[in-house]
């Protein structure tokens, strides 16, 4: 018995150490950039992890420039719209895939998987040409469309897994209770799939928010440039200023919405929401 406890304690210690290592490895860069964002230009290269002189000047600078605020609005708008459309379309497609047997179902799933695996870099040049011809270049739809395209497969996959877990009897019951197909989906199935919808929304939002490749290739002005792209054009308050501090501050600022987004929706992802529907 004694040896048993000893092994578990030691195993726990070993695993704990490993966990700490992973967390440190993941968080140190984030903390570092946060620390840089609070440093004055004079102390930015002093190599201290904790700033000697605290300042909020970097934040003031970026919010004073139109460039960053505009990019932030673009980012939020584009990511939200793309997420909304992708989740709605994805939910409908996933519902059909999980419930119906229609010809070409295998093909549809296969093609969506194919799109998800396609290297985006190879599509950037043709997309650039197409969007220029169609007048979509450097517009919100010009970014929203490719985002939806690449986010949909992800949405369909996650959501169909969630829909498959919902007992089919519930839908039949709703129909017997007098619901149309649409009412059954909206009032019974969708609320139960809510955790799946939120999970998918988070994943899609993060994908859109973090994208740099499309943002830099398919935009040319502040009109539709998102934050990740705008950061690369960052110069600070004046051309002659070193923008490191400002870039760090901007990086911190664009991380915050993601954290908020995840924290907010995480509360909605309650496992076992479907318990009690059927026997068990």
């Amino acid at each position, binding site marked *: 018995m004694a040896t048993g406890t000893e092994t578990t304690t030691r195993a726990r210690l070993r695993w704990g150490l490993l966990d700490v290592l992973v967390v440190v490895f993941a968080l140190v860069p984030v903390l570092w950039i946060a620390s840089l964002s609070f440093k004055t230009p004079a102390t930015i290269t002093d190599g201290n992890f904790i700033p000697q002189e605290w300042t909020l000047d970097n934040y003031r600078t970026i919010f004073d420039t139109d460039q960053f605020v505009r990019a932030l609005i673009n980012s939020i708008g584009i990511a939200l719209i793309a997420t909304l459309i992708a989740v709605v379309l994805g939910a409908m497609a996933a519902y059909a895939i999980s419930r119906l047997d229609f010809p070409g179902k295998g093909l549809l799933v296969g093609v969506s998987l194919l799109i998800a695996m396609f290297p985006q870099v190879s599509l950037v040049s043709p997309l650039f040409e197409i969007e220029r011809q169609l007048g979509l270049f450097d517009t919100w739809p010009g970014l929203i469309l490719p985002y939806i395209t690449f986010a949909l497969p992800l949405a369909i996959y996650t959501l169909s897994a969630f829909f498959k877990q919902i*007992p089919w*009897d*519930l839908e*039949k*019951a*709703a*129909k*017997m*209770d*007098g*619901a*149309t197909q649409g*009412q059954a989906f909206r*009032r*019974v199935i969708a*609320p*139960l799939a809510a955790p799946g919808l939120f999970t998918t929304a988070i994943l899609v939002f993060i994908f859109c928010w973090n994208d740099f490749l499309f943002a830099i290739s398919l935009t040319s002005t502040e009109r539709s440039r998102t934050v990740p792209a705008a950061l690369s054009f960052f110069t600070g308050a004046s051309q002659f200023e070193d923008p490191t501090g400002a870039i760090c501050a901007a990086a911190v600022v664009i991380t915050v919405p993601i954290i908020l987004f995840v924290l907010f929706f995480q509360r909605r992802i309650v496992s*076992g*929401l*479907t*318990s*009690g*529907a*059927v*026997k068990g």
Partner: protein
Amino acid sequence: MADIVLDKVSKKFPDGTVAVQDVDLEIADGEFVILVGPSGCGKSTTLNMIAGLEDISSGELRIGGQRVNDKAPRDRDIAMVFQSYALYPNMTVRENMAFPLRLAKLDKETINSKVDEAAKVLELTSLLDRKPANLSGGQRQRVAMGRAIVRQPKAFLMDEPLSNLDAKLRVQMRTVVSRLQKQLGTTTVYVTHDQTEAMTLGDRVVIMRGGAVQQVGPPQELYDHPRNLFVAGFIGSPSMNFLHAAVQDGSLRTALGDVPLGDRIRRELEAADAPRELILGIRPEHFEDAELVDEDTRRRGLEFEAPVEIVESMGSDKYVYFTVEGERASAAELEELAADAGASDFSGAGSNLVTRLSAESAVAEGQSRRVWFNLEKIHLFDPTNGRNLTLHEGRAAGALAD
């Protein structure tokens, strides 16, 4: 309230399997009809077709005199209770029961009063604000029933509603269902695979096998006058004993001795195409310890002696199992019934006989015992098509009928 008429209703799936074949059934207004049969007999498909959850391949379905083949479930005004209950887990009990009323766009006050009323009938009032996850199996079952009765539909459909409850609760809920149906007087179609439920609940029972109706009638009639081997074997617990019987010189040679035949049966067996081998069926309660039978009764039956294998004393009577030598009765129906009971691979040598003897019987395991059985209650079946030969104008007449 309405009657339900199935007119040659069939269900054929795209892959060619026929799940339900030409079912003719008239369910009167307010009647409680049970569809029963082994798994895969088409009873649930039939129910789903009445509900509208499954398309009807051919034939006509009329509810309240109106053809509803092409109507969506919500336009048929019938409620259904599912085996899995199918409660909406995101809604409270009150919301669950109010759901059909809200869809029907009733005003809030009416909804509340109707829900409260239904909750009172089913003793759910104290649970109205709970979520289904916090209810016991029996309570969930009651909520499912409540959701069905709350909008006073034309008919109730129930798909094995009690099969997920434990044995004791099931017996209790059976009376609840029965009382509720009588109280409301709503036409009810109830699907089950449990013949006890079928016997105890329904006004009429429909026995199905392989998508076809075998026999329709009140439970006692099915029990006493089974039309064929399948019905005889399916109804009754413990089930009817089946023995191989060979026709020889106007009597039947069986493992229990030579059974004399009455004129009517004999005439029937003299026909050129009559079977030479039969299956003899006797229900357990038609046996009796020979010592306890008086002289008068003795003449109406036959006696045999066999070794006692097991005695199960139930208090009110004794179930005694005998082993008898001789060929086993064999027919497709019997194999199907054994497979449904999960006993297809369980077969000893010779035949087993289940008898229900009086509690006063001094029978003991290991000894040999003289047992009497009633010839008037015997059924004879044609093993090729399962037909009950003793049935005369719908009544079983035993082996001795003239």
